[in-house]
């Protein structure tokens, strides 16, 4: 029991650290990618290639003056960013970061908890994330914050429906809610062992999921909750110092976790082509698999940023039209299509 707890504890610590590190360096990557897409260089003063920039930014956040507005509800004002951060970190629990490692005869699974309702857990926790933004925006007692918060909650609830419907089609196909099992179904090597990644069977579902992931993470073109041009800073207008830092950090963690979930659900997770044909032992495959998963995640994080500098923000009515009139009918059509195909054409 103690051995089990130590192993899980260490795993939690490692994943926690990696998540924070990835989030910190996402801010750096965001600025670099933004700069490169706009023919600039980006931060290059702090350390070689500006690599210490996230540390400088973090230190700045800690030393900034902390302002809590007098008219705000102080308890809720503090709870807001805490919930945002907490829920962002909690979703990483069910993501299968790798297959199992065998050390000294014991098998160690590189996943904190293999819940049999993994996807539902992710959705549940992500839904709670809305409260972080809603509470933060409402307790600030500021009209811009409130409008931002209302927009955020309306947007997230609308797109969660389409996201859930997109996932139903995938679950129809895989027959399981466990993220690990979905990953393992996509494993395989050449010949009869070959399994396509889910994106091949669910292209439409993937597209809907991707668009909804953008909306759930409040990323451009769906960054209406923040909306600097209209709402000052949206729900975090009144926030300063590390509380603002937590909100911004939570956004990057959400981006990281969504990339991980997208990779797991649709792009084979920790599997890579011909993994069973290389003649490597299981531990090596696991290690390479984890590296491959992180490469996929990196690509999707890059994709998030790439899109950010490609398209401008949607107008609010366009956002709602896209969510309710296009995404949801498309997702339902996708479910029907998947059902018919799995009924008549056995996979």
């Amino acid at each position, binding site marked *: 029991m103690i051995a089990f707890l130590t192993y899980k504890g260490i795993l939690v610590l490692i994943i926690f650290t990696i998540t924070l590190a990835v989030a910190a360096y996402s801010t750096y990557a965001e600025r670099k990618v933004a700069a*490169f*897409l*706009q*023919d*600039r*260089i980006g931060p*290059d003063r702090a350390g070689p290639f500006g690599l210490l920039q996230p540390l400088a930014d973090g230190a700045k956040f800690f030393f900034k003056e902390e302002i809590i507005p007098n008219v705000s509800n102080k308890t809720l004002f503090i709870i807001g960013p805490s919930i945002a951060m907490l829920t962002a970190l909690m979703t990483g629990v069910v993501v299968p970061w790798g297959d199992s490692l065998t050390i000294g005869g014991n098998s160690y699974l590189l996943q904190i908890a293999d819940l049999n309702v993994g996807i539902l857990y992710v959705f549940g926790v992500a839904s709670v994330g809305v409260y972080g933004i809603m509470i933060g925006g409402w307790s600030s007692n500021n009209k811009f914050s409130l409008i931002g918060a209302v927009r955020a909650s309306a947007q997230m609830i609308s797109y969660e429906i389409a996201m859930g419907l997109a996932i139903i089609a995938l679950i129809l196909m895989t027959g399981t809610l466990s993220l690990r099992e979905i990953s393992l179904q996509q494993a395989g090597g050449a010949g009869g062992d070959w399994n396509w990644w889910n994106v091949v069977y669910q292209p439409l579902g993937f*597209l809907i999921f991707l668009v909804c992931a953008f909306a759930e993470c409040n990323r451009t073109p769906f960054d209406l909750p923040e909306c600097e041009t209209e709402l000052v800073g949206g729900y975090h207008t009144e926030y300063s110092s590390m509380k603002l830092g937590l909100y911004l950090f939570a956004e990057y963690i959400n981006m990281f976790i969504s990339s991980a979930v997208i990779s797991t659900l649709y792009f084979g997770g920790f599997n890579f082509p011909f993994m069973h044909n290389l003649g490597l032992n299981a531990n090596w495959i696991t290690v390479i698999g984890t590296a491959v998963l992180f490469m996929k995640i990196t690509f999707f994080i890059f994709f998030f940023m*790439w*899109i950010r*500098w*490609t*398209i401008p923000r949607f107008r609010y009515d366009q956002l709602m039209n*896209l969510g309710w009139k*296009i995404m949801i009918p498309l997702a339902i059509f996708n479910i029907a299509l998947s059902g018919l195909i799995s009924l008549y054409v056995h996979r």
Partner: protein
Amino acid sequence: MLTSRAKVVVKKEMNFWERIYLPAILGGTIITIKHLFKRKTTIKYPEVKREISAVYRGQHVLKRDENGAERCTACGLCAVACPAEAITMTASERKKGEEHLYREEKYAAVYEINMLRCIFCGLCEEACPKEAIFLTDRVESSDYSRKAFIFGKDKLVEPVDQRIDVTKRQLPVVLEFKQKKSLSHNR
């Protein structure tokens, strides 16, 4: 209609592909990814400086003649020409024994340019009959107070041992004119 550029706006209903935005977004991503590999236009400033032309209009200089005497006679034409009213001066009479300091009988005891008002148009340079004031390719330094931007003679007059070359700024006609030693201007 004043120009032929006016366009009639047609409000067209978007079709399905346009309404789901995806083809347009895909086109956009291709444009942005191309920029990722483009040459960056940033100049890393303190290490690399932007190339500026030889006749760049930067910080002013008050010239001395070959003997090291100040050329300015405080005639005030530059101050009159200045559209930003940045130049002000106080004239004074040259005393005996100061011939090596000031070229002519009258000189500027105080000569100030407010660098915050100055628009670097170069009209002072054009107005000066004595070839005393020139704009140079030097960039003025930054400071914290407004007062520090009122440049007096200490910053404007060129040091005797560090002359600033302005020959590139003068037209060939002017340089040729300067060769004629018979004219009082060149004496």
